[in-house]
């Protein structure tokens, strides 16, 4: 639905404040882009937003993000209302983090992407899921999944070491080992390269 000029201005002002990292011109461009995307989308949301497919195509074309699993997760983080539809607010605020987020914002974003089931932890299975295609060359004499399992162990050892140590103290070996946000944050602060440890989910600004 078309918006009045005044309505647009109010929207842009409000979004500029909430998204923090864009100026008014930039927000206005993004809003206009949003409108085109909505037009492209199926009409089931009656113009309130666009759907997953459009979102994935857009990110793919704009940022070269190709991994479907990741794109799905990104969609989920944008879709805070969790209704399969990206509204203009979710759109602008989401992009603000993606393109210009502070380290804190990016850490929260990445963690949310990697936390596949949204339970606040990145579990061993989730890690396996994300890394299973990362080994291009598997040595012939090994079980195909052994390499990936090793890789997962490496990550846990690197990032969740305190947690594992506590498990060891508690003699609680049933726990698979998982990463809390606190673990993730601490590890990334020490080594920034670990921000996208389970796969690229931020646009590559070359």
């Amino acid at each position, binding site marked *: 639905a078309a918006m009045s000029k005044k309505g647009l201005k109010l929207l842009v002002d409000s979004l500029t404040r909430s998204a923090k990292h864009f100026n008014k011109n930039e927000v206005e461009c993004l809003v206009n882009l949003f409108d085109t995307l909505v037009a492209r989308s199926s009409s089931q949301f009656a113009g309130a937003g666009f759907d997953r497919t459009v979102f994935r195509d857009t990110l793919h074309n704009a940022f070269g993000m190709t991994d479907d699993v990741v794109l799905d997760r990104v969609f989920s983080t944008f879709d805070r209302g969790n209704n399969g539809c990206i509204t203009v607010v979710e759109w602008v605020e989401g992009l603000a983090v993606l393109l210009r987020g502070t380290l804190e914002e990016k850490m929260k974003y990445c963690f949310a992407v990697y936390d596949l089931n949204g339970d606040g932890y990145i579990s061993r299975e989730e890690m396996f899921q994300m*890394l299973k*295609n*990362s*080994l*291009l*060359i*598997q*040595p012939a004499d090994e079980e195909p999944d052994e*390499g990936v399992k*090793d*890789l997962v162990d*490496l*990550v846990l*050892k*690197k990032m969740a070491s305190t947690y594992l140590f506590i498990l060891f103290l508690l003699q609680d070996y049933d726990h698979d080992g998982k990463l809390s946000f606190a673990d993730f944050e601490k590890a990334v602060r020490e*080594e920034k*390269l*670990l921000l*996208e*440890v*389970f*796969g*690229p989910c931020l646009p590559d600004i070359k």
Partner: protein
Amino acid sequence: IFSKASSSVEDVGESSSETEEDEQPVRRQEGGTDLSPEYWGIQKLAKYVKGGDPTATLIALCSMRDLNLSQEACQLAIKDTGCLEVLINLLDTEEIKCQTGSLKILKEISQNVLIRHAIADLGGLEIMVKILDSPDSDLKCLAAETIANVARFKRARKTVRQHGGIKRLVELLESISVGSSFQAKDTETARCGALALWSCSKSIKNKKAICKAGGIPLLARWLKCSHTNILIPIVGTLQECASEPSYRLAIRTEGMIEDLVKNLSSEHEELQMHCASAIFKCAEDEETRDLVRKHEGLQPLSVLLDNSENKQLLAAVTGAIWKCAISRENVLKFQEYKTVEALVTLLTDQPEEVLINVIGALGECCQEQENRGTIRRCGGIAPMVKLLSATNRALLVNVNRAVGGCAMEPENMAVIDSLDGVRLLWSLLKNPNPDVQASAAWALCPCVENAKNSGEMVRSFVGGLELIVNLLKSKDKEVLTSVCAAIANIAKDQENLAVMTDHGVVPLLSKLANTNNNKLRRHLAEAIAHCCMWGSNRVAFGEAKAVAPLARYLKAKDPLVHRATALALYQLSEDPNNCVIMHENGVVKLLLAMVGSTDDALQEAAAGCIANIRRLALATEKAKYG
């Protein structure tokens, strides 16, 4: 240890101003069939780097950094498993994160000499130089820091230069934001660039390349910064390059002396040391010595002598003081700060590199009479004389100079003599090195002049006179000059002159007469003048054809030469045959011009000589005409 492969012309320019690892590094222990646990760990990680996508690669690289990379076993494992090649190949990709992860590891392990040779062999340097073009400043910093480590040997430094590395490293110094405030990020980039330049600057060709790339004004600019962590590599680079005259000139003219002096008062000893080193090298030039004084640098230098724990710092400071003391005004200033007293305390229990400079400084300070007394009162003469038994050439040259300086005071001379100092100096005439011989001979001049019972003393050195006369056969100009000066002094004693005559001093001196070197001419003429005073030496000099060349000396521009020559000619003119030769060589006209000189000795000698020649002429006339 140093295995020199056939060195090409190119290699000459690579010669460094300091000794460093030229040799092919050898592994310390081979053998042991058990591969270390580090080996297996790294091999496993290398597998992921080789066979994984960038995500897996990064995980492996980050895990690798948890291993103890400063441990040699680990470092060698990275090389032996072929992981090093993989790391270098990663550098060649466009994946900034992978390049970063790889460089973080390479930076650490390149502290190992074997690893850095391997990195260079694998072509890693060229790639790192390319990375210096990257827009990512963290990546550039890592590349520069790694280059700094790898470039610790000649071939690596050459490679960096040949691939345009020097220019790019200098560009890192350009990262100065608008305005004079030094932003943290720019400072970090510049610091890394400076570290790399510091390593690279050990090669002469690189010093020149840095200059050509416009590095000097940038170094000057950063010298004004107050962050120690960048100042150290900046000053380190400057002092390394200060062996080149072009740099010394720039340091002087671009106002860097002021900054160097300022940083002498830093809290960081390493920074103080580099500043002192730079001043040490630059103070070869008189204008710099004046600038150091003008910017009040002499006092902080003197104060630093109190820190005798840090030997490297002490060596640099004493070196700076030594060279600054070449200028008399600086010596006077040092007197205010009681520097001489402090230096004397450093004559014992110090490493050679410190001693050389301390003694050099004291030698310069002896220019001032007051200091000669100070040295004696502080008990400095005994340790000095003891050092005459050293073996280090540079040390001996300085010691000789200092002892000679002290010997100008008769009171000092007594102490030197009592400690057998003159005999020790005399035996240094046997030293194979001409610099040592010459400096010993120079020192003997005041000794012979000021010692009590000098003639007897000289005679007491068995074979001493023969030794010194034979040095007239040396090929070294400085040796010849100094020996002539010594002989001129020794010849004042009749007995000794007789002995020297027996040893052939006359023909030997005469053989030297044909020289254009004014310093030699002067002392030679003095020697001849004094050696005339025995037996038939005057005649002998004439027969040995010494007179005509001497006549030519009068045409020189040096007044000291004139005076010495006039003295010699006056003595020689007591013999009629010599007068004839002098007359034939136009001596009269030249001497006439000097009769009006303000130099009394010259005046007298010239007049006396002319009188003798005239007398002979008259006598000849008389004989002719009855």
